[in-house]
């Protein structure tokens, strides 16, 4: 039996209750909305770029503990990174939460706490919603991204 504590790690619960960078970003030059129609999670991710680097990033919206904590910790992890670095980080994160990469070799930093999601396949979409939304924002897509 998968352990609930593996999913709901302290750090995840803490971020879900007090999300970081949870605000409007008036200086944003990239923005996208992400939506999970199955559970109604909805987030807007706003990014301010400087050259090729993410200078500032913020998010707003509503969702479950996993999706909110993931959005919060994502904003911390990608700030200061280049587009390409953020993309690669998402790829490693995605492989980890889907059980396709050993978290020890994924170089995820704090994001390693999401490794437990791989035991809960129905929650992968929650963990990756903000990341998909960030990708859409960086690629300048106008349409809301959906996990479906």
């Amino acid at each position, binding site marked *: *039996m*998968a352990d*609930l504590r593996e*999913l*709901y790690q302290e750090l995840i*619960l803490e971020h879900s*209750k007090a999300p970081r960078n949870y605000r409007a970003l008036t200086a944003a030059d990239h923005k996208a909305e992400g939506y999970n129609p*199955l*559970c*109604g*999670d*909805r987030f807007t991710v706003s990014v301010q770029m400087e050259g090729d680097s993410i200078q500032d990033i913020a998010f707003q919206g*509503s*969702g*479950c*503990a*996993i999706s*909110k904590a993931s959005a919060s910790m994502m904003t911390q992890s990608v700030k200061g990174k280049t587009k390409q670095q953020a993309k690669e980080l998402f790829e490693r994160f995605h492989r980890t939460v889907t059980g396709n990469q050993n978290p020890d070799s994924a170089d995820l930093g704090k994001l390693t706490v999401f490794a437990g999601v791989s035991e*809960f396949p*129905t*929650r992968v979409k*929650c963990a990756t919603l903000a990341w998909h939304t960030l990708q859409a924002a960086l690629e300048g897509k106008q349409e809301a991204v959906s996990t479906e």
Partner: protein
Amino acid sequence: MTKVLRMPSSPGKVALGEPPSGYDVERIRADFPILDVKAHGQTLVYLDNAATSQKPRTVIDAISRYYECDNANIHRGVHYLSELATAEFESARKTVQSFLNAARPEEIVFVRGATEAINLVAQTYGRSQVSTGDEVLITAMEHHSNIVPWQLLCDEKHARLEVAPVNEKGELLLSEFERLLSSRTKLVAIAHVSNALGTINPLAAVVEMAHRRKIPVLVDGAQAVPRMPVDVQNLGCDFYAFSGHKTYGPTGIGVLYGKSALLEAMPPYQGGGDMISSVTFEKTTYNRLPYKFEAGTPDIAGAVGLKAALDYLGDLGMENISSHESDLLEYATEAISTIPGVRLIGTAKEKTGVVSFVMEGIHPHDIGTVLDQEGIAVRTGHHCAQPLMDRFGVDATVRASFGVYNTKSEVEALIRGIQRVKEVFA
């Protein structure tokens, strides 16, 4: 206090000599093999009956037996098996007719489910009767399957979809409903029982108001048929739709009941075999009712399984089932109401065994995951009723919905599960 609406049941549908107090839930549980499954190592507590119900052994056996002994195509072969299969299929139709107390067997059309039944009416009755500037009236508590087919129709015909509002308890505002009936209203489409809230709609009043203006009424009965006695002649509605799989029968089969005069006047739905009486390249003559609406080889085994399910429910007695679920609802409502931080969504006076709730600061999806780890199956999300979620200002709810085999101890397991949720997210 919540109480299930009692409607007069037709003769012959009351279980013999079994008062509600004699309802033997343990014996019923033994009829459902899946209840022995362990979920994450825990005893399964299946409280997702509004999504789909589990199947009794008699249904599973009827389907197997059909394929082992009777399988053939229907209405065409002259051979032995084809006669058997045809007889079984038509016998299933008669069972449905009697279960709904429809006047005639040809008023029962087999479809894939309630969704297809509603789409059938939208695409045939709707497309032939609704034109520019007309209106279709629904309610704010409809499932997407009783919203989107009408939106598609209204878009195509430049007609308007009107929506009757509900109050904060999740009850239809009848005066608002009546106000929205106009000379342009071509059809009323309304749930008998709300899937997300459990509200039982006041169909007698709805039908009376609509019929006074000569407007036909379609009822989405997907949540009502498994939970309470349904008598379409007594209701007086013009169309009634339900799904086999929510009624302890198989997936892939459902029913559209329609008054024969309406069905006769409607154009066909799909074209193909079985729905014709003669075909030339110049002209096709359509078959009589109900075959006009049953193009192609139907889900014969599904109909056989549905018959077994309705026979099973008939033996239990719909009054007894409704009384049993009403007891569970009352017990669950009282227990959940006393938990701090839990808010019930949908507190209609007339309600079936559905408990929808939200918890302060905890998302329904997280609640669902914690309950799942305890072996408790509930639905979390918008329940295909997003406009209704908007009405209550929530993105989603947790929904526990009861069935014939649920027990008070399972309600207690749910309550313990909710306490566990609070511990995890404390």
